[in-house]
């Protein structure tokens, strides 16, 4: 090709498909129940797999006897995961698994496994650092500037303590897979063949990881996934159950095995968002300028102590600070990335502390957030100020906001609060193949996955835009590891990755088509354009061929790759990172019952160029709903006496319902200066500030900080009592 192709996005006024809002392409499949999730797969001869897990918060396995289970009717395989001597530092720890002809037989067999435990002393609560004892691991102190002097010089000092409970991902489709491992005739495993239908956020990374663990070459592992019922950061690897499921299948002579976690086990071991607690002092001037910040933080992400995130969030250029962080080793399942890991806790602690400081200074928190946006990363200072103003406008802040505690005379008090978010969201490395066939049909092939975010629709829109075709003229194939590899869908990296590789692949393929038909149109390839299912000469719309007629001139199909390595400098301007968001919660609190109701929730979010505004808004709605649920309801409740997880179910692990979320107002910040930055991921940033905004709104309503999230009636009433005492 003579010239480097021009991959850049068409200018806004030339876009036909990008920037429009078709409904998600798989919506009818999903809403009608025709979509088959991996857990819906029931291949012929499938066995039902089931785990036996530890009932104790901390125990050592003394002995295990699977004899009776192995002899139990219908049992085809038993796998011991924890041998004698294994320390099992949380409830739900995997001990053994069985595969049987039916679910009932598997359940009967699991109950016949005999295990002796040596129960060890446990710690399952972390809200009080003083009670953590030797389980606390100091993470060291970080000092910036001269915090002691700055505290002395301060005109306003505000102190607070804030806490944020462990919550779980609660994916509606639990972790697991259907897997079939057919042994071959070579003991090395070289002829073994594995087919797996996992519930994963990383289809293309799955085979390599599973293959390493089961010693079968990834080339012999077929991974297929059409739909996934939620991941949120918890489903990146095959996990132990992928390996165990495969082993059960092999033991059973190659029959497929369905091994999914039970709901309770899912909530115990399949990941959680760690807790975070912080004692924070904010000091500054009467005008609301922050000059110093001290932070003693602690929290737990499970048995391996992980300290809570650093402070302050976003406002990282506060000149003076002292920060201490401690991780606590708890006897609970391990943390996993939870939709913007670390950022929610960080935003919660920071934004609550700023709101308390604004109150102490007697200032409108909106102005205090805007003023201190000077401490945000330089490139985002103006963005935050713009977004805070936009959110305030949509939330009617100037009309509805009142100083703390002046929420009206009745028993129901209204209040408003602010939270802010940051996220990178640069696309991951991605490869796409675009195929143009001689009959005019078009396929896009990419081993990505659609987590429910709309990835399928987005890829199709990008291809349709390049080719000048309608969406239904583009066939998309994803979720299949025979296709060119994409990355895992985490870190909000998918849209940047797939849109970049798809754009490149489709531009490359179109250039080939232009070269093939240019002589017929009496033009050079660079004079051609693809518009409205025609290939035509720019400026001479009469000199054109229909898309199909043009493709018929090909002697063979075109198959072109588009590759992107995930580096900012190699995006060809198509994608970037660095998103910002500002949100405002508007709540009513019944001061007699402590029940918080959402009135309105405003989310202003930028994500660069928006491919499908409807789906972008939908992402923000989903994030806000999930966030409201954690702010008001969700909490892992542990019993210190027994070490038991008391609510590993959907009954007392409370999730928000549709009537609990109020009116959500989404504003995508798609100003031209954001559009020209290219595509930025969006799944996570809008999920960041909700606990902060809701907690601030409740404090504003009732006149006192409720220190602990979720904001349950007992906590709200207790805070009111302390205020009235």
């Amino acid at each position, binding site marked *: 090709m003579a010239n480097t192709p021009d991959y850049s996005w068409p200018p806004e006024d030339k876009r036909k498909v990008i920037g429009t809002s078709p409904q998600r392409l798989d919506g009818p499949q999903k809403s009608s129940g025709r979509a088959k999730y991996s857990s819906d797969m029931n291949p012929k001869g499938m066995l039902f797999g089931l785990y036996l897990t530890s009932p104790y918060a901390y125990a050592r396995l003394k002995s295990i006897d699977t004899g009776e289970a192995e002899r139990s009717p219908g049992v085809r395989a038993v796998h011991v995961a924890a041998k004698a001597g294994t320390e099992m530092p949380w409830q739900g720890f995997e001990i053994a698994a069985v595969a049987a002809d039916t679910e*009932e037989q598997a*359940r*009967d067999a699991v109950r016949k496994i005999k295990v002796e435990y040596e129960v060890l002393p446990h710690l399952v609560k972390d809200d009080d650092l003083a009670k953590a004892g030797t389980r606390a691991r100091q993470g060291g102190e970080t000092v910036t500037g001269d915090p002691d002097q700055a505290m002395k010089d301060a005109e306003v000092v505000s102190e607070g303590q804030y806490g944020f409970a462990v919550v779980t991902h609660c994916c509606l489709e639990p972790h697991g897979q259907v897997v079939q491992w057919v042994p071959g005739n070579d003991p090395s495993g070289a002829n073994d063949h594995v087919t797996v239908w996992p519930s994963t956020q990383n289809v293309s990374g799955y085979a390599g990881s599973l293959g390493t663990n089961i010693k079968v070459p990834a080339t012999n592992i077929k991974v297929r996934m059409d739909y996934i019922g939620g991941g949120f950061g918890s489903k990146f690897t095959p996990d132990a159950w992928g390996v165990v499921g495969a082993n059960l299948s092999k033991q059973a002579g190659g029959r497929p095995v369905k091994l999914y976690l039970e709901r309770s086990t899912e909530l115990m071991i399949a990941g959680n968002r760690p807790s975070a607690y912080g004692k924070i002092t904010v000091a500054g001037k009467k005008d609301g300028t922050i000059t110093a910040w001290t932070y003693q933080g602690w929290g737990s992400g499970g048995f391996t102590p992980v300290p809570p995130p650093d402070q302050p969030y976003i406002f990282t250029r506060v000149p003076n600070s002292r920060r201490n962080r401690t991780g606590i080793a708890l006897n609970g399942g391990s943390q996993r990335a939870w939709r913007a890991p670390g950022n929610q806790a960080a935003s919660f602690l920071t934004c609550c502390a700023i709101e308390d400081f604004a109150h102490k200074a007697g200032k409108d928190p909106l102005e205090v957030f805007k003023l201190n946006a000077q401490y945000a990363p330089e490139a985002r200072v103006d963005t935050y100020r713009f977004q805070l103003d936009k959110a305030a406008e949509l939330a009617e802040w100037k009309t509805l906001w009142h100083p703390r505690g002046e929420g009206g005379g009745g028993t129901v008090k209204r209040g408003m609060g602010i939270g802010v978010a940051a996220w990178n969201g640069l696309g991951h490395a991605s490869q796409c193949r675009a195929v143009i066939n001689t009959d005019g049909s078009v396929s896009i092939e990419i081993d990505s996955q659609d987590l429910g975010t709309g990835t399928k629709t987005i890829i199709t829109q990008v291809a349709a835009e390049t080719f000048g075709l309608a969406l239904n003229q583009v066939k998309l194939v994803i979720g299949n590891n025979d296709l060119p590899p994409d990355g895992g869908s985490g870190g909000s990296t998918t849209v940047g990755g797939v849109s970049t590789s798809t754009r490149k692949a489709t531009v490359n393929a179109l250039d080939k088509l232009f070269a093939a038909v240019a002589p017929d149109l009496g033009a050079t390839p660079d004079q051609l354009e693809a518009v409205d299912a025609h290939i035509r000469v720019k400026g001479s719309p009469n000199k054109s061929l229909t898309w199909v007629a043009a493709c018929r001139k090909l002697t063979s199909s075109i198959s072109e790759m588009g590759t992107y390595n995930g580096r900012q400098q190699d995006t060809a301007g198509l994608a970037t990172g660095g998103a910002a968001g500002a949100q405002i919660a508007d709540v009513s609190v019944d001061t*007699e*019952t*402590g*029940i918080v109701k959402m009135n309105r929730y405003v989310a202003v979010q930028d994500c660069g160029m928006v491919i499908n505004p409807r789906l972008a808004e939908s992402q923000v709605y989903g994030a806000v709903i999930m966030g409201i649920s954690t702010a*008001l*309801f969700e909490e892992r*409740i*542990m*019993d*210190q*006496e*027994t070490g*038991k*997880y*008391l*609510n590993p*179910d959907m*009954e*007392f692990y*409370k*999730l*928000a*319902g*549709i*009537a*609990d979320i109020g009116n959500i107002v989404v504003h995508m910040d798609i100003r031209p200066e954001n559009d020209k930055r290219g595509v930025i991921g969006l799944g996570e940033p809008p999920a960041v500030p909700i606990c902060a905004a809701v907690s601030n709104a409740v404090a504003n309503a009732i006149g006192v900080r409720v220190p602990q999230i979720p904001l*349950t*009636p*007992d906590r709200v*009433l*207790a805070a009111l009592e302390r205020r009235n005492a």
Partner: protein
Amino acid sequence: MQAFEYANPNTLQEATGLLGAQWGDAGVLAGGTDLLSLMKENLHTPKRVVNIKNIKELEGIHRSGGGLRIGALVTIDELAKSHEAPRSLVEAAEYIPSPQIRHMGTVGGDLCQRPRCWYYRQGMGLLAMKDGKSLVPGGENRYHAIFGEGPAYFVSASSLGPALVTLGARVKLVSAKGSREVPVASFFVAPADENSRETVLRPDEILTEIIVPNTTMKTATYEVRQKEALDWPLAAASVALTMSGNKVTAAKVVLGHVAPTPHVATAAEEALKGQSVTEATAESAGKAAVEGARPLSQNAYKVTLAKVAVKRALLGAVKA
């Protein structure tokens, strides 16, 4: 879940003949909203499941003689839409969240469901005893009882029970040997030991209907629940007022979800006599209703909620 025999009787006589003398002999399946989860968790492992949904005589709401006969199979949704049932009972049904539960769950099941205590549901026994002591008072008791002295600290899960007690309703319990009628007020009991139950229903009996006497009382129910979506109440109150003009001559005030049984608030009933219902008298009645409350380490807030529920139920009852 353990393997079980499934029986599909068409008559009450057949059904009662399929029950046994022990709880483990049979489980009665109506809406199944509780039975199935109990069985899945192996908290209840009946040898036989007796489906009573084909027994026509257990359906429907009928007016007869002294009152209303509500068949045990009437769904929560049917009761919530009833024009015949007293207001407090309709309101109690309306509060029960989730369309699925309202459409599958039955009134008989509401009264017979097992406690929702998480110690019980996690397999630690009805009274959550460890080394002869209940785990609840020193444990996670935010949703537990604020009345009673143990050893039962769970709360009655019934949403209809409090209203039925205020209305003087009775339940009919039928076994192969005969039938008996029991006032709802004495249907619920606080078990004294792990082998006892929270109702007087025997393993060989089926609750077949609820008999609600005709009433001219002003009634209402108010429930405090955190979520609008599926969630259990934190506290509830049902009231029934006999009025002379705007004065209360007799009052029934019963709290729900605060004790192992619906809790009759006698002091509140006394406090209301001779009063008209105003914000102030309703508030005083609420205070009287929680006299004698003994909150546990985490649930003092439920005392506040019970007070508020009584106040709001009373004000609701006298509102046109």
